[in-house]
């Protein structure tokens, strides 16, 4: 649904391009992860895709037409949650949602969403009196308010407790199951691994990789199996290549020794992140 070609963007006061010529596509119905070190331009890219930053170079097509040729119908289609939770602090959670609801043609009943996100009992509390995690959950509900076709989520689980993060991830997966498309950024690699169909890595304004997490793991991983076993009280570690595991030596080892652990050399997204972007993870 999105086609991005040679996208470049520079903030008015900066002399370098924050986004320096990137190309990617987002397919209908996929969850597309956008990864990169802090200040790499992830949030900036999201703001360009949601038409907040309009002075970009290059081409962005949404369903075959230039993004900037769309007017309010584009915003009927999308739901956005920003990096920082945003709400009218002196209005209650419910009043916040009611205000935004009136701006759309099509909306959902917020009660089930509030209940699922654990905010139903606090719906009449002022948003300014919410804890950080509560504000984040309220923002996610706001993004879902208009039955969007596509969600833009900038670090949605950042600052959530594991239980609520689980619920939010389930909701994102259900959204996808019902045909929704998602653009998501996160520094939590396990979330990305679990949610994303494809991921892009951005560093220094350029895209370093765009692929499925599985393909990246194969590409960056070692095709080996590592075995740890005990022999006469000593721990021994041996590594076999994928070809070697077909040989009798490997089978005999499995049969005769007390195996303690057995690992394939598949790498994690975290290691790929560090290799691809050349930076260590934040936090």
């Amino acid at each position, binding site marked *: 649904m999105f086609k991005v070609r040679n996208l470049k963007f520079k903030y008015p006061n900066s002399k370098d391009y924050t986004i320096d010529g990137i190309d990617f596509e987002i397919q209908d119905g996929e969850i597309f992860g956008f990864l990169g070190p802090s200040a790499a331009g992830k949030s900036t890219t999201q703001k360009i895709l949601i038409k*907040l*930053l309009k002075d970009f170079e290059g081409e962005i097509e949404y369903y075959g037409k230039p993004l900037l040729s769309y007017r309010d119908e584009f915003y009927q289609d*999308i739901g956005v949650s920003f*990096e920082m939770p945003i*709400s009218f602090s*002196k209005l209650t959670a419910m009043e916040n949602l009611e205000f*935004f609801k009136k*701006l759309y043609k099509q909306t959902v009943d917020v009660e089930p969403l509030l209940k699922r996100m654990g905010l139903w009992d606090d719906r009449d509390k002022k948003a300014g009196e919410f804890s950080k995690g509560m504000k984040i959950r309220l923002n996610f509900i706001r993004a879902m308010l208009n039955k969007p076709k596509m969600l833009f989520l900038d670090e949605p689980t950042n600052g959530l407790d594991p239980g609520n993060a689980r619920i939010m991830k389930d909701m994102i997966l259900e959204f996808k199951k019902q045909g929704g498309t998602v653009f998501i950024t996160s520094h939590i690699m396990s979330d990305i691994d679990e949610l994303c169909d494809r991921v892009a890595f951005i560093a220094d304004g350029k895209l370093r990789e765009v692929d499925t997490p599985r393909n990246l793991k194969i590409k960056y991983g070692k095709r080996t199996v590592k075995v740890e076993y005990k022999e006469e009280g000593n721990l021994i570690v041996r590594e076999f290549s994928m070809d070697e595991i077909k040989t009798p030596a490997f089978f005999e080892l499995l049969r005769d020794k007390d195996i303690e652990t057995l690992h394939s050399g598949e790498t994690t997204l975290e290691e790929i992140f560090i290799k691809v972007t050349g930076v260590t993870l934040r936090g």
Partner: protein
Amino acid sequence: MDRLLPLVKGEFDRLNKYNLFTANFVVLLLWVGMVSFFEGAELKMFVPVIFLMDSTMMTILLVGATLFYEKQEHTMNSIMVSPVTEDEYLLSKVIVSVLNSLITVVFISAALYFIKGVTYNYLLLIPAIIVVTVVHSMIGIRLSYHAKSFSSLLVNFMVYIFVFLLPTVFATIGIIDEKIAKYLIVLPPDVSNILISALALDVEPWKLVFGYTYLTVLSFILYRFMIKPKFNEYVMRETGV
């Protein structure tokens, strides 16, 4: 324009919740309190001052305050990723300002009628209040673009008043020649004053015709060239979102 009504309603709701209505109401009570000190001809001179101050100064301050809150809480960004267009958003601010000024007209006029038994030409007052408020809500928006905080908005406001009122003051005390003083009608506070004073004083008709035409044209020019083109830049400036 389907979103105009919910935007206007939402704005009133927030004026209430953010205590701006209360602040406005306190000012209205102060005006009513001051009214009781005047009688006769003096009162006739004083009433236009109330409406002038309300539709210029209060308009700028209220519009500035709502923009300031929305900027500070970044809710502006949220509204701009909803189907609301820039025109709808800005227009809702102007409409709310006009409604607020009209509420003042009703409140003060009622108070004057009940306390002093005073009536005046409401038909001349209402259109004047509308054009003056429209222009000044735009000036308020424009001043907010340059303001980093609410206090710097106040400073901008003072500078505006100073720059535009000074020539009028000079003319009154004779520093500016009478021939030139005649042209001061092009200054927004001056022309606003003339239109609103018409409720109590006799103003030459050409001045009224000029005043209405001028403020209407000025509103369009301000909107088209100074408010709308810079709005997106204002929304996006220094947003940490």
